[in-house]
């Protein structure tokens, strides 16, 4: 059971996910890849969900992907977010395949939807760097 507590907005990071968090500190999106079947895995696994191998290695993702789904919080469930609603949290499908979670932010109020292109960015929360995603639909490349 995990109730939000005032002032606590950073999780106790499980050992298996520590490389992912360390990656965020260095502004890298780290995912895992199965050495046996090469399937990319979402971070924090110890078994390949395709072939069952436990030989996974951490690799850096490009940091680009598309919005798989997203939600908009209109209600705050934690005091930290009381003045931040509405805010958007998405599952982003990285180009490599795995999906990771992050806030969605736009430069100038671009519209976005499921399928919109995004790229990884980082913001500082207390002393931690947190991955979020900027919508790149409509950006000049």
């Amino acid at each position, binding site marked *: 059971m995990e109730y939000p507590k005032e002032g606590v907005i950073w999780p106790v990071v499980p050992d298996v996910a520590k490389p992912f968090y360390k990656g965020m500190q260095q502004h890298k999106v780290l995912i895992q890849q199965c050495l046996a079947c090469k399937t990319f895995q979402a971070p924090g696994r110890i078994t390949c969900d395709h072939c069952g191998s436990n030989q996974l290695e951490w690799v850096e993702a490009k940091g680009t992907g598309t919005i798989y789904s997203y939600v908009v919080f209109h209600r705050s469930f*934690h005091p930290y977010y009381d003045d931040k609603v509405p805010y958007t949290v998405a599952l982003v499908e990285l180009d490599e395949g795995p999906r990771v979670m992050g806030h969605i932010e736009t430069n100038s109020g671009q519209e976005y939807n499921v399928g919109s292109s995004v790229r990884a960015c980082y913001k500082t929360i207390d002393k931690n760097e947190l991955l979020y995603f900027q919508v790149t639909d409509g950006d000049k490349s």
Partner: protein
Amino acid sequence: MNRNPLSAVIGLGMTELRRDYTVASWQLAVEAIGLAIDDAGLTHQDIDGLLINKSPIEDLSALPMDLQDYAGLSRLNLLNVVEAEGSSMVQTLQQATMAIQSGLAKKIVCVFADTPLRPDISAAESFAIAMPMMGQTGIEVANGFYSAIAAYAMAAQRYLAVYDRTTDDFAAVAIANRQWAMLNPLAKIRKPMTLEDHHASPWLVEPLRMLDCAYPVNGSIAVVVSEASVAKDHPQPAAYIYGMGQGHAGNINRRGFQPEIETGARLAGETAYKMAGITASDVNACEFYDAFSISTLVNLEMYGFCLPGKAGEFIAENGIGPGGKLPVNTGGGHLSSYYMQGATPVSEAIMQLRNKAGERQLSQLDNMLVTGYGGRMQFHAALIMGQ
């Protein structure tokens, strides 16, 4: 229909379902257990099994193994706290049935109790958990991804985008639930609901509105499961179990998989239908676990009543409310009757199968599909029940 039931529910006990706190969950459970045993025409001495469904939002101490002693049960051949999140209550009936089939026990109480509304905490706070969407990372907390609503909103948005639907499909579910609730004196919200009411309902976590969410209560529900062969010797009409299944498809969180909207319910249904010797087209009515409106759409699809993405059209064409071709959640479901997790669909099924559902009574009940799911819709259990 000439077929052999696997087991029978012969007792049902329900405490008052309240929107305020009175006593702890274990005390409510003791009351419901006593009511169920009385209802079955049994005494405490007759009970030889106890299967406990603790609420996932409560600590183990809220409904511990010691419930045996609190309830005065001292001749048990079977005792377990069944932990399968929201699918637990249906799983307790499955485990009871397996115990009966194997001869391990003969008269088994299955009980659920929960007190999300407390003097110091609201129901919204009770359910403001951070549900894992990304596996073992805790990243949900860092992203403020709190509440079960958020996890289901993520499924809901994916559903709307992939199938090009609108939130009016969610409204169709909520309105049908409400129409049933208006016929159910036990239901907590019974005023009429229109599409306009749904449109006006505030977003909590978009695309889910307040009217898309379950209505929490404090209370407890218990049943007594027995060998089917002696079910007629008990005072209440038996609710028989003919088939059961589970489906747990995992959370494969990468391209090619959509665990939010393609769930293990498909496997649970296929297994249960096969065991009962039926197909989805033989099902007369469904009692789904439906904590959020989106889940009824996904359940209709995964349990084989229509193709993925077609539940909205299915509801419009066939009807799932009173008078509809496929009655669904005939007491008002979680949205409008009472959120007793998996005990809500189980209790409504028993009332229907006993022909004691009053104004909302269904006429033909050869096969009812009774389901539970847990987590972010990844754990599924199903029963085929009948008269």
